[in-house]
């Protein structure tokens, strides 16, 4: 029964020393340790949250970039199409212009040919008339001398004319 008899001295010293240890540890050990632990946990928590936020921002940024890229691509396509259209139009216009010019030149040529032809015809007509007049003149002159010779002359002249 000795081990369960209360001893005043033990209880007294245990109370004093334990409370002293509790006070000293609470003040100089547990407080800084618990504060440091909580601070570190908070900082880790914050870091994680910030990383999450950064990830989200990054995603937003990436999405923005992609949109920008798609826009740029679209614009490029449009510009290319427009360029093609303009080129086509230019070619078409050049073609029509050229045709018109060719037609105009041909028309001009035709007109000048017609003119030349008319001129030539007029000249021929004039020459024929002159010749006829000449022949007639000579005939008239010969008839006066000899009718047989006249006939012969006419024939001759006619031959000449044919030759011409």
């Amino acid at each position, binding site marked *: 029964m000795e081990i369960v008899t209360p001893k005043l*001295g033990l209880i007294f010293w245990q109370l004093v020393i*334990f409370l002293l*240890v509790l006070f000293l540890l*609470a003040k100089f050990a547990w407080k*800084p340790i618990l504060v*440091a632990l909580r601070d*570190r946990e908070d900082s880790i928590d914050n870091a994680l949250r910030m990383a999450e936020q950064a990830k989200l921002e990054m995603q937003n940024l990436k999405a923005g970039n992609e949109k920008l890229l798609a826009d740029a691509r679209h614009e490029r396509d449009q510009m290319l199409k427009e360029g093609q259209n303009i080129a086509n139009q230019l070619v078409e216009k050049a073609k029509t212009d050229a045709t018109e010019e060719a037609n105009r030149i041909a028309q001009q040529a035709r007109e000048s040919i017609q003119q030349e032809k008319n001129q030539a015809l007029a000249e021929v007509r004039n020459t024929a008339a002159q010749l006829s007049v000449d022949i007639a003149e000579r005939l008239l002159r010969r008839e006066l001398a000899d009718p047989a010779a006249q006939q012969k002359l006419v024939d001759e002249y006619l031959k000449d004319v044919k030759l011409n």
Partner: protein
Amino acid sequence: MKRLLTLLFCLCTFAGFAAEPTEGGEKEEAFNPGEMILHHIGDSHEWHWFSTDNNEFTSYLPIIAYRPGKGLSVFSSKHLIKGAEETENPAATAKTTEESEGPVYEGLRLHHEELVATDGSPVYDFSITKNIAALLGSSLLMLVLFRYIASNYAKNQGRAPKGIQSFFEPIIVFIRDEIAKKSIGPKYERYMPYLLTLFFFVWFNNLLGLTPGAANLTGNVNITFTLAIITLAVTLFSSNKNYWGHIFNTPGVPKLLLPIMIPVEVIGIFVKPFSLMVRLFANITAGHIVILSFISLIFIFRSPAVAPVSLAFGLFINVLELLVAILQAYIFTLLTAMYIGGAVEEHHHDEEHSLDLRTGHADSVIPSPTAH
């Protein structure tokens, strides 16, 4: 107070070896295992480290006795131990009245490790006994160790723990998250210093008690009694209206039963710390007794052949005691946290009801008859 403690600590002198009292002839003293075991788990006024054939290696601790009327007497326990003084102070031994009793000094002598006055007047023994010396030692160890760990936290602020700091950090975090937060709730922070000190005090002293030659501190009922009293005081001082409401007007209990319920609940207040006291004391004492009993078998059978069996069982129990050391520290701390948690709980049932209404669990709305 601190200066006084250091002064007292200086008083306990390591006296080295003193001549063993030569027993008359080769008379074989019958081996009494019960006495040996009780001596080992009990407290004493000197710190007996070990003995060789001729010498005993003992530290004599200071005796501090208060006697009403005579005041305080402080002297080394060397004067009261039989045989310790024989060569130095023959005058003291001359006063020895009986052979079985120790020497008398300043009117005091030790009777079965108990300080008594020769004239029968009451003596209040505030001696630095073996247990108190061990208590001072372990307290100093805790102060130095945790102050060092705290300084480590200041040094690597915001960085991963290093060295001994990383060994204790998971334990501290476990006590905070698994014991304090879960058992006490949102007000846990106020009680963290007490719970941490309690846990490490019990654990360290359990382990130190297992080392050879050390004092059996946590296996001493006075120590566990004091711890339980502090827990009771903390519980009562932090109790709120809700706690007392549960004791004097337990919700959900018919009024007719109250004359029975109130005494039961009031006894419950004291039974809780009492169970704490007995649990720790009995566990640690039992472990020591079992180990010592196995060792005693060798001497009871007087045969070295028993030694391997005794040692094997002794070793097994010793390793088991290492587990019990931390387990009992955990249980003591957890139960303390639960008792405090019960005292600071706020409107437990109202919260439960509203919670149940919100989640729609109608079956769990039935109030529990008692809080614990």
